[in-house]
């Protein structure tokens, strides 16, 4: 079983893909009300958004992590950024490797992985639907859960959690 | 990829075999076996033939003890006290937030009491997860086995405390083992919270009126009994008394002793009979108790300025006297009472009287309190006389 740690991956990618790996700044997700747990520094590899495709293909072709398991978006409202987590597995087993990408909340845009991993299709559509991350190069980037006329991105932390403005809008 | 402790099997597709209907015949054989087998019932888990239908309204599955449907509150059969102390743990644990609790307050002091005033569960939104029952530190909320909840009433599934209350005896029929596990702790905690519950607070709603009435009745009885002189007791030989009568007598004697010591509770009318053994006697005793109470109230009102008692004791005495008088007036015809409860009430009355007596000599602590108590006692007495 391959046991490549995130740290090793980071050094390898620094060597092979210069400029693609960023230093992860600590996240201020802990609201002040919850006391002094401190900022959260991710151990995973943080990738420059424009170099995401290179990094993913490097992971697939050079490192052998061919299986794209999951794409998750997290909205860090206090840090004013969206983080997209790509999770890859090696088919010989072992733990995952994650690539993280940080985007601005105002204009989140990423290259799509769907042409290379068709399995990313629904993941990306889901991320677009719920968080508004636009994947350039996606063949069919439409809302997947919500109806097409829906406005706003319901999973963002600043989306109103109560009330239904759509009922009001119809009246 | 290599695999630890096991192999990779490539499924055999059985290619190259002449397929001329053998598989179809095999399928027919399987179904035929089931048809033949269906004339008897599938009895246990090791059988795969036989009907396994349970004809629901006629026969029912035996539900396992751990089965959970909707949460209910349980109360103690003997005292009528609910186990719930309104600690809000269940409301906090509830994922869909369908539990709403109001904690009871002592009407006199305004303090919170470990009991719920109202307890609402919205059954329609409840998801039967059982987290409330797990979270409850007092084992007061349990998952019921009743599942036929269908209703055509939209609000019919909003269950209030009166709908939710189930006796422990009911819960032991559906889940005896689960109750045995927690019984000891739960009952211990219940005793603790009963001590902090004044009056009928914390008693299951449909029982609280009954229990309150009975309590008042018995207190009135106890109040009637105290003045009985100790030497009047041997009218009947002790050996011939039934245990209940004996107990009542004992209680009465105790009350009398205490009452004798307490100046506030002194009543002139002596009780000729021993104990309320029959209806007539009970009636008589009740009337006498009323009189005694009235007198006692008057006496206490009169004596209050002179001998200022402790505020609490005075208040207690006044309320009790008032209750006793009220009960006596209202329920005098209500005949033979529960012997056990009578005993309990008598003992309690005796204790109270004793306490009052003990505290009476204690010097006035606070002028204001004494005055307040006196006024309250006077009011009560006035009300009674009306």
């Amino acid at each position, binding site marked *: 079983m391959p046991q490549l740690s995130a740290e090793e991956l980071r050094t390898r990618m620094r060597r092979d893909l210069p400029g693609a790996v960023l230093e992860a700044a600590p996240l201020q997700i802990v609201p002040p009300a919850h006391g002094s747990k401190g900022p959260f520094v991710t151990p995973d590899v943080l990738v420059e958004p424009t170099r995401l495709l290179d990094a993913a293909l490097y992971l697939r072709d050079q490192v052998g992590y061919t299986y794209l398991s999951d794409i998750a978006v997290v909205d860090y409202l206090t840090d004013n950024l969206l983080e997209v987590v790509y999770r890859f597995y090696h088919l010989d087993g072992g733990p995952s490797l994650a690539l993280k990408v940080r985007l601005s909340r105002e204009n989140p845009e990423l290259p799509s992985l769907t042409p290379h991993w068709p399995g990313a299709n629904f993941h990306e559509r889901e991320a677009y639907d719920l968080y508004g991350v636009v994947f350039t190069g996606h063949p069919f980037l439409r809302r997947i859960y919500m109806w097409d006329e829906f406005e706003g991105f319901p999973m963002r932390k600043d989306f109103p959690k109560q009330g239904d403005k759509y009922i009001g809008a119809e009246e | 990829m290599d695999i630890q402790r096991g192999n990779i099997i490539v*499924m055999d597709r059985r290619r190259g075999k002449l397929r001329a209907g053998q598989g179809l015949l095999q399928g027919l054989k399987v179904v035929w076996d089931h048809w033949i087998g269906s004339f008897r019932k599938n009895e246990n888990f090791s059988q795969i033939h036989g009907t396994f239908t349970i004809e629901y309204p006629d026969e029912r599955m035996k539900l*396992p003890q751990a089965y959970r449907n909707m949460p209910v509150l349980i109360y103690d059969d003997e005292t009528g006290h609910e186990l719930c102390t309104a600690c809000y743990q269940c409301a906090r644990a509830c994922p869909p937030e369908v539990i709403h609790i109001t904690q009871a307050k002592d009407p006199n002091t305004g303090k919170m009491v470990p009991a719920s005033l109202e307890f609402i569960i919205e059954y329609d939104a409840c998801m039967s997860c059982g987290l409330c029952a797990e979270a409850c530190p007092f084992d007061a909320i349990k998952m019921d086995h009743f599942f036929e909840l269908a209703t055509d009433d939209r609000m019919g599934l909003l269950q209030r405390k009166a709908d939710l209350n189930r006796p422990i005896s009911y819960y032991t029929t559906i889940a005896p083992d689960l109750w045995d596990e927690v019984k000891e702790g739960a009952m211990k905690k219940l005793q603790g919270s009963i001590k902090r519950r004044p009056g009928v607070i914390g008693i299951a709603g449909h029982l609280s009126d009954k229990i309150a009435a009975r309590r008042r009745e018995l207190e009135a009885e106890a109040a009637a009994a105290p003045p009985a002189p100790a030497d009047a007791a041997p009218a009947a030989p002790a050996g011939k008394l039934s245990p209940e009568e004996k107990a009542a007598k004992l209680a009465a004697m105790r009350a009398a002793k205490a009452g004798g010591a307490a100046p506030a509770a002194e009543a002139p009318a002596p009780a000729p009979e021993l104990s309320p053994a029959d209806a007539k006697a009970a009636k008589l005793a009740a009337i006498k108790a009323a009189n005694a109470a009235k007198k006692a109230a008057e006496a206490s009102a009169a004596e209050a300025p002179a001998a200022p008692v402790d505020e609490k004791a005075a208040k207690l005495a006044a309320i009790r006297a008032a209750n006793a008088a009220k009960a006596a007036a209202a329920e005098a015809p209500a005949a033979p009472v529960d012997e056990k409860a009578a005993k309990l009430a008598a003992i309690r009355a005796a204790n109270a009287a004793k306490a009052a007596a003990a505290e009476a000599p204690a010097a006035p602590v606070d002028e204001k309190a004494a005055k307040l108590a006196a006024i309250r006692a006077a009011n009560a007495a006035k009300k009674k006389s009306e």
Partner: protein
Amino acid sequence: MLKTEELQINIGPQHPSTHGVFRMIVTVDGETITDLKPVFGYLHRNHEQIAEVNTYLQNMPYTDRLDYFNSMANNHAYALAVEKLVGIEVPERAEYLRVLMVELTRILNHAGALGFLINDMGAWQTQLAFGMREREKILDLFESASGARLMCNYFRFGGVARDLPPDFMPRLKDLLIAMPAFVDEMERLLRENEILLQRSENIGILPKEVAISYSVTGPMLRASGVPYDIRKAEPYSIYDRFDFDVPIGAVGDVYDRILVRIEEMRQSKRIIEQIIQQLPDAQGGHINPKARQNVRPPAGDVYARVETPKGELGFYLVSDGSLKPYRYKVRAPSFINLTPLGDMCRGYKVADVVVILGSIDIVMGEVDR
């Protein structure tokens, strides 16, 4: 030249064999599919956001509702994620109980899934009824252990909610007597039946490389010939203590998926037999006494996954140090396994669409979340 027009058919959302409210916009040329677009979201309830306003434990019953066939497996994935995040140890006995329940879940899911698949092929529910019979027996066991048949809510952080009742083991042993007979019978009904062979052989082929690039998981991935089972590839819980095989298919069609599922039931039974052997020696109680109801993990993120009967179910949790998860993401196997549906169906007949869909074995509660 004769020109024919393509016909667009909506299969669903109200259709007998879409396994819930699922819609496929099918473009057909005669009866041949030229295009298929899945449309869903009718059951969407924003599960992930509901989870963000609940405490960690309160989410446990919600995970039951993801894939309501395998609530135990969902519980397992979520419990693993939170335990990893907080760092809770699970006692040995609890681990055995967990694996026991999850393997029973696998059997019941496959029994049901095969039945539904054959139902989609047009059988009149006989195979389904046989599968349901065994499923009901297992659900009886679940009910006696957890209190509910479907929404078990049985797992807690650091163990399971309750220990087994005394009548559980005898009934489980009875069930294991019936299980081989049931699986053999299912195999006899399915494996060589000429009609079924015609309907399933070379239908919905998903070659190995395509399956990997589509990120499909579970029996579907294994039917395509990839021996990837998370229980072997990244053993979690105590799966490294059991001997069991990983069945894979040779072609990757519907028939292989049927065969793989039948074999997985056998392997699950093997695991359960080993559990019955080892359970009496297991240390510890059914729950870690230190694991409390309210957990407050340190800030951080975690991804934990299990091999549910449908495939890889993963939970990605981000904690901000409070009582509630900051982000809760479900990587649902049914949802991802649906991705290749359009490509798998293209070129086949309308009747094959439902069969291919049935062979994916989706549950809309998990797809729409």
